[in-house]
């Protein structure tokens, strides 16, 4: 551990290729260990996908990255995770601040029961982005445009966000997340509740967002991982089995478990 930490200090974290670095991360739910000693580097302005069978710990790992696990009773995280070289589990670090920098999109679209406009404006408002109405307007438009939703909803910004279709809702949630301009966006199976057309739109969106954001995505679909990500990490039973370039991992995996999973022998 000490060595790993020293290693990190050598490079300048602001310019390093790695936005987030996880070292020796284990997660316990009460007595049960859900994640075992995971080491993973998240590349800057890259899409990293986490794949693996159900219950393998990929979502758990994702929720560690912005400390959403704090919300769950009895969940304990050990190990180091850094964001630009700063330990995010440092007691001095503030969760709210962290989550403003590391945003999240959930499996099921969860728009607030407010208007579309307020859904987007909520984050900027609490973080003091754009005090003036015109600033907020601009953020809303920009976020929706980036999420590819602007054209569809610009005439009904004051209608409730819950009235949109599933795919639109999820893009609204993505727009909501990027409205705060986080540095990292975590996506927890963002397309699992959507139909193929909506899924395609979101995948396109993810690829565009890569310019400005670092993205970590948990997905059940290997095709999706292959399509959208540059790096892929394969989890199995709480272990990080293998991690590498997506291309390489899917064509020439090192581990036979990975081989088994991507060829569909278990899953």
């Amino acid at each position: 551990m000490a060595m790993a930490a020293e290693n990190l200090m050598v490079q300048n974290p602001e310019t390093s290729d790695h936005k987030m670095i996880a070292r020796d991360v284990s997660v316990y739910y009460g007595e049960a260990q859900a994640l075992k000693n995971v080491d993973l580097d998240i590349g800057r302005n890259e899409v990293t996908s986490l794949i693996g069978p159900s219950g393998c710990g990929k979502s758990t790992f994702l929720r560690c990255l912005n400390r959403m696990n704090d919300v769950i009773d009895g969940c304990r995280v050990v190990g180091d995770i850094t964001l630009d070289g700063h330990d995010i589990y440092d007691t001095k670090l503030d969760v709210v601040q962290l989550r403003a920098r590391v945003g999240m999109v959930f499996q099921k679209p969860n728009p607030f029961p407010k208007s579309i406009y307020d859904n987007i404006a909520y984050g900027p408002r609490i973080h003091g982005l754009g005090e003036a109405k015109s600033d907020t307007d601009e953020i809303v438009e920009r976020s929706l445009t980036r999420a590819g939703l602007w054209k569809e909803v610009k005439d009904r910004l004051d209608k409730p966000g819950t009235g949109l279709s599933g795919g639109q809702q999820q893009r609204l949630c993505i727009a909501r997340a990027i409205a705060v301009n986080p540095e990292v966006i975590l996506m927890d199976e963002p397309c699992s509740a959507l139909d193929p057309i909506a899924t395609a739109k979101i995948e396109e969106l993810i690829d565009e967002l890569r310019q400005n954001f670092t993205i970590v995505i948990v997905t059940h679909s290997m095709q999706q991982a292959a399509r959208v990500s540059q790096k892929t990490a394969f989890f199995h039973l709480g272990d990080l089995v293998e991690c590498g370039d997506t291309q390489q991992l899917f064509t020439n995996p090192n581990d036979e478990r990975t081989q088994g999973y991507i060829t569909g022998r278990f899953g």
Partner: protein
Amino acid sequence: MTEMSASATQIQRPDLSGKRLKRRYAAEARFRLYGLIAVFAALGTLVLLLFSIISNGYTAFAQHHIALEVTFDEAEIDPTGERDPQVLRRANYQGIARSSLRNAFPEVTERRERRALTALMSGSADQTLRELVMANPDVIGTTQRVWVKASDELDSFMKGHISRDVPESDRRIKDRDIVWIDQLIAAGNIESQFNTTFFTAGDSREPEQAGIWGATVGSFLMLFVTLVLSFPIGVLSAIYLEEFAPKNRWTDLIEVNINNLAAVPSIVFGLLGLAVFLNFFGLPRSAPLVGGMVLALMTLPTIIIAARAALKAVPPSIREAALGVGASKLQAVTHHVLPLAMPGILTGTILGAAQALGETAPLLMIGMVAFIVDIPGGFTDSATALPVQIYLWADSPERAFVEKTSAAIMVLLAFLVVMNAVAVLLRKRFERRW
């Protein structure tokens, strides 16, 4: 929005400066504090309420008595010497009690003074003596030391409710009374004893003779009627609505109606009882029967709602299993579903009964506020109920009734605590997770 692309390049990251964050966290702490204050304010008022009741009421469980040296003169009590109970009963015990007290203060001779002296004794002193003689005629001809009840004023004075420091004109116990009381205390002739009367007597205009037994009996007679009516009706309608009723307008109407009925003010049920049971059907006023019927209508929605929830909690697989072995629908319900739901139904029923036991307003409407001394013996006798008794006493001007009222509240709350505890135990004991 043509500058879209331009503005997209210069990204404005969130303001994470310490100042703004500090303000947000201060708001967070304040908000949390408000919540905590609210919880403690609610709990605090509960404590204050209980404290005010108990501190006012605990003294009512004791009652001061005065010791008299009573000479049971045969010539006065039983001139014929035949020990005929009729004769013994009619003797002038009041005179005996008064003269016994006067004998202890030979220096008091003036008529008004003497009357004030005997007023320190409760008006029930003669009854105490009569009961003593009737139970044991051998005391006639002897001199006995007998404890009789003190008056409510003396009792309040001894308990410190009437202070010596108050100007004489403002208190019911005058200076000369205090002199006498001090003499009695010095002679060891005043003593505080457990107040059995409070638990065994009916109502009375004299605080020291008043008790809650009449009201308690009335309450339980009423509760019996309530349960006999509302439990079967409630359970039957819950079974029907939950297990058999088709989903249509009519059952929807019943359901909406039951939910609304649960929130109708209780006094409206009293008006219903007055108009229908008393005026239309001509049932007797002030009777536990009518009170119980009114309360039954009032608790019915509570029981139905609880019973339906309990039935709903039984998983459909149980019903299917029973139907699968060839039971009729009614058999499936009565043999399997109902027994499994019973603990929940009983819990709801007990809670409904507790609510009925504490209800006052509808009983006022059907005349259960009468001043009733006798202990009710049946469902159509005139009676009152514990909460109504509390209301009546709370209205009485005598200082001594304040402690009686509080004590009666303590008894009522004790009943409610027991009923709720039973309900909680029942739920704990038979709680089942499917």
